[in-house]
């Protein structure tokens, strides 16, 4: 084995550990634990709450998609703030600070737009 593969040793160890732990825990609970008896519902992953199998073609309110989309959009803000913080020292402060202000201003315009369009209003006003 070449020296370059040494770098991957931690990855191999992680895989082995994760797999080993899973096998160990499942094995232990099969050997030591009590068997569930009685109602078939006790064998399901969630004993209460969501039924795990149902028709995939159900309709969601379109509001969910809007909120999901907006979440992603505004999440990007945070994603950009991280590299911004990392390279802050490497670039002229005036440039990078103004850049971030511009970015936030654009984002703010988007926020005004969605609020004014009533996207976040969950129920129609009477």
């Amino acid at each position, binding site marked *: 084995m070449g020296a370059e593969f040494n770098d991957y040793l931690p990855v191999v160890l992680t895989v082995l550990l994760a797999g080993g732990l899973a096998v160990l825990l499942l094995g232990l609970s099969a050997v030591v634990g009590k068997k569930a008896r009685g109602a078939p519902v006790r064998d399901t992953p969630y004993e209460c709450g969501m039924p795990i199998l149902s028709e995939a073609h159900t309709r969601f309110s379109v509001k969910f998609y809007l909120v999901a989309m907006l979440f992603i959009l505004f999440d990007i803000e945070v994603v950009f703030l991280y590299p911004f913080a990392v390279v802050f020292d490497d670039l002229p402060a005036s*440039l990078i600070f103004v850049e971030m202000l511009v970015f936030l201003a654009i984002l703010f315009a*988007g926020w005004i737009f969605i609020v004014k369009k009533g996207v976040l209003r969950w129920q129609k006003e009477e």
Partner: protein
Amino acid sequence: MNAMNLPLMLPEIALVVLGIVVLLADLVLPKEKRHLLGWWVAAAFSAIVVYLFVRPAAGEPEYAAFGLYRLDGFAIFMKKVFGLAGVLVAVMSVDWVKRHGRAAGEFFTIVVFAMTGMFLVASVNDLMSMFVSLELVTLSFFILAAFRVADRISGEAGIKYIIVGALAAAFMLFGTAFIYGATGQIRFDAVRGAIERLAEPAYPTLLFGAVTLLVGLGFKVASVPFHVWVPDVYQGAPTPVTAFLSVGSKAAGFVLIVRMLTLVFGEALSNELTPLLALTAALTLFYGNLAAIPQTNIKRLMGYSSIGHAGYLLLGVVAIVAMQRGGHSYGSGVSAIIFYLFAYVFTNMAVFLGIVAFSATAGRKHAIDDYAGLGKRSPFLALTLTVALLSLAGVPPLAGFFGKFYLISSVVEASAVAGNGWLLVLAAIGAVNVVVSMYYYLCVVKRIYMREPPENASPILLGAPVRVALMACMALVVIIGIFQGPFVKMATAVLATIR
């Protein structure tokens, strides 16, 4: 190269600000006035084009954003073309948006952002900024194509375009990844440098990456076999959007193909790419022109015609790659593409201006038969449509004729320079297809003049702005066709700035 150099990107910055202003103005303006935002957009696009004309011409390429952005004569030229096309699109959209009645602000905002993407595409100098800019264009067009939400055909156009567009994006990224894998660089000049000292084993990786990237761009320019989305999207999208798409997506794609071939690949891949691109060009020419013949819907016809024109432009691309072999410069291939794009944009815009104006009175069916007797209902519109269609067909002395002549002669020149006789066959295929394309364009012209209008036909009313836009396009089509000299000189001057 290592500076932000913001003033260089003034047009793009202005476009982003314009997009946000339009978006917010939509919230403030009363509903019945929102379609007037189209005039704002047209005015702003015109101002940007004027700025591009008066700004000192770029001698050496200038760089901004730490080398991600390159401004040379080619970029400025394409931005002028995109900007003028944008003005025409805004003019023809105003009425459409008014009739549509919903989401006027959003429509124009997305048009502005698509334009921003095109401006950036003209200036990319880096594999990643290339992808992001092109996707900005494509994402905007997804939304615009599906803009008439209540209409099934428009929705179908949007969905088809999204699926095919996602596939194309995947191809592009895949190719980009392989080029990066082979060279370890993403900036165009650095990739070029790495290719020149590339070790033999990495060569297939580079070739695979280049071909995959060209496949992705093939989707954008609608070349066979990546054309499947074109007819449905052209038919289903709102007509102003179809007009924008037909020039925007195609021109952006060809700009990137030219950039990749001249700035990045150089002569390294010439041997392999020449036959591949020549085959694509021949297939595209035949498919587009033959499949256009049985069409009964004018927008579908324009879709197939657009595939055919992608074929002609690919002739220029073939000339570029073939000539690069043995260290020749790109020669007339690039200038022929530049000339043809310039002529094509205004000719196509004239046709779509006509279609929009006609359908405002005659309904949205867009059947070619509806154009029967247009010569009597509106002589002006009939004349402009005829001139534009004849120019697309390549009838002298109009712009399309000389454009095709220039492209075909560039292939002949490449054949002589590269000593490749097969390219003469390709040139002949190009010439044959000019004749084929005359048939279906003339079929439309025949209906306009030789058929009687329907009984209850009303005259077609044209608004003053549309009339002016049509006249401007018409004047350009005729002037470019008759006085090619200055325009060829312009294209050659642009060519000189690329290397």
